[in-house]
C-alpha cells in the first residue's frame, strides 16, 4: 500500500459490516473576493468521492463547497470480509485527485 498524501482511512470490520471513516486534507475553498487588493480566491473543492469494495462502488459522494475544509466522511456497507480491497478516490474542480487503496 502506498500512503496517499491527502487521505487517512480508518476501517472497522465486524461480522461482514465495514465502517469507513475517512479524513481528507483539502482546502474546500468556496471562492470569493478577499485580500487588500480584492483579488479573487478561486474556488477549489472536492466535487466527487468514489469508494469501491473489491472493485464495486459502495459510495459516490457529490460535494459542493459547503462541505467543510479537510472533509470528514463516514459510511457503512455490508458484505465485507477480512482482506477485501477498499479504495477511496477524490477529484476536485481544479483537476486534482488522490486515492488510497487498503485491505480491510
Amino acid at each position, binding site marked *: 500500500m502506498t500512503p496517499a498524501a491527502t487521505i487517512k482511512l480508518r476501517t472497522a470490520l465486524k461480522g461482514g459490516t465495514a465502517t469507513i471513516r475517512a479524513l481528507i486534507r483539502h482546502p474546500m475553498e*468556496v471562492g470569493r473576493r478577499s485580500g487588500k487588493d480584492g483579488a479573487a480566491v478561486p474556488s477549489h473543492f472536492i466535487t466527487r468521492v468514489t469508494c469501491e469494495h473489491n472493485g464495486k462502488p459502495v*459510495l459516490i459522494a*457529490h460535494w*459542493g463547497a459547503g462541505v*467543510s475544509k479537510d472533509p470528514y466522511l*463516514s459510511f457503512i456497507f455490508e*458484505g465485507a470480509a477480512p482482506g477485501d480491497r477498499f479504495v477511496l478516490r477524490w477529484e476536485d474542480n481544479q483537476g486534482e485527485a488522490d486515492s488510497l487503496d487498503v485491505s480491510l
Partner: protein
Amino acid sequence: MPDWNTPHGHKAGHTRRGAVKRLLVMLALPVAAWCRALLAGERPVPAFRAERVADALQALYGTADIPESDKLRIGMAALAENGAVVPIKVETDLPEVSEIALIATRNPVPLVARFDLPPGTRGFVATRIKLAETSEVLAIARTAGGLVMTRKAVEVTIGGCG
C-alpha cells in the same frame, strides 16, 4: 406479435400503431436503465447551481413537495460553535436507501452534498458541513418507498460562509 388480420399497413401483418407501441417499449427499457445510471453516478450539476432551496429540490427530484418522516434522522448539535465545521450525520432504517442529500437552507448554495448509495450500503452518512448562518438543515432520502425528508434547526454563532 404482428396482427396478421389487419387490413392496414404496407408491410404484411404490421399496423403503424403496433409498430409505434413496440418502438416505445424498446426505448423505455434502455432509457429507464440510463435514468438509473444517471441517478447513481452523475453529478447533479443544476442542483448545485440553485440558490434557493425549492430550486435545488426541483433540480434534484423534479418536485419540492417531499413528505417529512421521523424515520429519517439528523444528528447535529442544536448550537454550532463554528459554522465552518459542523459535524452532521444522517441515518435511517428505511429500506433500500439509494440517495441521501443535505441542504443548508441559508447557505448561498443550499445543496451541500448528495451521497449515492448502492445496494449493500447502509442508510447512514456522516460528514462536516459549513453553515453560513442560523438556519435549518434538510436531509432528503430516496428510499424504496419514495422520497422522504427531515429537518433540523441549528443556531450558528460564527458563520462558516458556505
